[in-house]
């Protein structure tokens, strides 16, 4: 539906896997940051005169 492939991530992480969680979150944030801001699926409030 027009979201770039690198913007959506899935992972299985157990509550006991703290290090894996940190790694995955770091990877995800880096990957998404590299894509830049997502401009499409953002609702802008109507401009009031």
């Amino acid at each position: 539906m027009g979201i770039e492939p690198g913007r959506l991530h899935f992972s299985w992480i157990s509550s006991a896997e703290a290090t894996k969680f940190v790694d995955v979150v770091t990877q995800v944030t880096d990957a998404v940051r590299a894509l830049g801001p997502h401009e499409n699926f953002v609702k802008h409030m109507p401009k009031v005169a």
Partner: protein
Amino acid sequence: MVGYIDKIKEISERLLKEGTVEMVIGFQKGTLPMMNTPCFAKTPEDVGNFVWDSHCGINLANYLTDRKEKIGVIAKGCDSRSIVTHITENKIKREQIFVIGAPCKGMMDRHKIASLFETEIRSVAENDGKLIVTAGDGEKTLEKADLLQKNCAVCAHRNPVIHDELAADPVEDQKDVDRYADVREIETMPPAEKWDYFDDLFSACIRCYACRNACPLCYCPTCFVDESQPQWVGKSTDPIDTKTFHFLRAYHCAGRCTDCGSCERACPMGINMRMLTKKLEKDCIDAFGWEPGLDLNQRPPLDTYKMDDPEDFIK
């Protein structure tokens, strides 16, 4: 197909007279041409109102949700699959329903027919594979085969999958239909192009929710779009709100949609929201080999776990 009606009436009348069911759900003439509406026959006399022609596109499974009485229902291929889905999802019991099967060769696309005329259509008659349409600017005889609803043109299950009695002999299923040519086309688009495609697709939406109301799967007591505490999605026709509604509704139908086309048929703006549900249908076939509503004994893919589930997308 017009010939079915005598048999439908005969079965319905018998069921009501014998008390096998308390109500038979069928179709009656609508107030506008090509818009047959559901008809709830509770007495043998009511059955006289029943009609059956190529404008019975509404999915009657929609009227079975949480009913407590015994009901007779007329079902085309797609309706019967939605009925199976209803039974699997505990929305009605198999013993409660008497399915009058109506093998179907496809329903007419009312949007397409209307687009062929400048003025309002006054009457539509059908005869031997042809439609005789009368509008303010004259009369035209059209081939039914050219005017099928888009989902009917690529239908692969024309005969009811469950039935207690058939109103006619089963029809031959369409072989070699390419159900997903249009979906594949969109799949190949780059993200930005996809976004523009859906932006354009839903730009005409007026948020009337006719698609949701006509959908036999949308039976939640309160739809997420109607909730206000919390308010999941804005209620305006803001393009983002509109798309959120359509995307989420489609996801709620994942692995359940039988492509009956009720949503598209109901839409006053002629929006092809089936592009979303079809993609999910295709994904379900590709990932789980699943087609909804074909078997009463099979659990849906989203509530089963298999060791060999494809999980390539999970890291």
